[in-house]
């Protein structure tokens, strides 16, 4: 593994006003080359207007084993969804 370039996670903003979305990962020796590689691998069909790269080791993630205490409690709290309000037509899409 010593000779492998580090792994980078790639996020692309598809158009102005949208959020960056995770599109995949790739290998590169440094951040600059990761951006160039991302440009070549993930935007060759005009998919993006902005690229973020993050070295995979810097991403902290939830553990699959913790999903009970983390996510299940919200399953039963439907009142947290804003679906009980009547939205006036004039507001348009929200």
């Amino acid at each position: 593994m010593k000779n492998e370039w580090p792994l980078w996670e790639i996020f692309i903003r598809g158009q102005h006003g949208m959020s960056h979305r995770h599109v995949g990962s790739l290998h590169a020796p440094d951040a600059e080359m990761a951006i160039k590689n991302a440009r070549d691998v993930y935007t060759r069909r005009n998919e993006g207007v902005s690229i973020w790269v993050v070295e995979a080791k810097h991403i902290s993630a939830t553990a699959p084993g913790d999903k009970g205490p983390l996510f299940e409690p919200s399953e039963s709290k439907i009142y947290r969804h804003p679906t009980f309000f009547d939205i006036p037509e004039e507001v348009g899409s929200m």
Partner: protein
Amino acid sequence: MSVDKQQLLQFLLRQGDNTLVLGHRVSEWCGHSPILEEDIALANTALDLIGQTQMWLGYAAEVQGEGKTADDLAFLRDAWDFRNVLLVEMPNGDFGQTLLRQFLFDAFQSVLMGRLMKSSDEQVAAIAAKASKEIAYHVERSADTVVGLGDGTEESHDRMQAALEYLWPYAGEMFESDDTDAAMAAAGVAPDPAGLREEYDALIGKVLGEATLTIPDSRYNHKGGRNGAMHTEHLGHLLTSMQWLQRAYPGCEW
């Protein structure tokens, strides 16, 4: 000022043949690069170059006025008709040699396109404007890789230095001037290439310095490509592979 059509044609063939031959050379890496990311990046570069070729040779065919297309010029001419500089037909060698060749050419193109965007010929200016964005990326990428490999491990450094010594005698041909260049300069179509050398040397000097590579002292230049006097033996082999389909099945389309 009116331009001599034959001289303009010659100028356009030089541009188009450079990008065609290098585009084909770079495409030879497809599926063979050291890593997937570089494979895709090189394929993108090759496609950019072929795209530029379509514009240059398309315009060349129009100026020629014999009812030919860019494809006719690309696939139905023989080695002695080609007007590319020898540098772009040199073999790929290892990955480092390919990227060094790319950098030496990209740097020239980046200097040239800045001038061609102000060409008195609107079509030349439009092609240069479109190509210049691709070239700006190409030269950034090839320069970064040259620095990465040159200032890398002992082995990568030695390979890059060997590649520079091998390719350096082919860099000077890009700055040769002849009657065609004089005619293009007089008409404001294109600059005299000899006048681009200083800017080019500054650009490559900075990058090769960062790459800890030593530019050879010799200014001896191989030439004969851009004026068609004599290509290297490598061009014929390249054309054999590139033109095979149109030679074996004339007029084949799909």
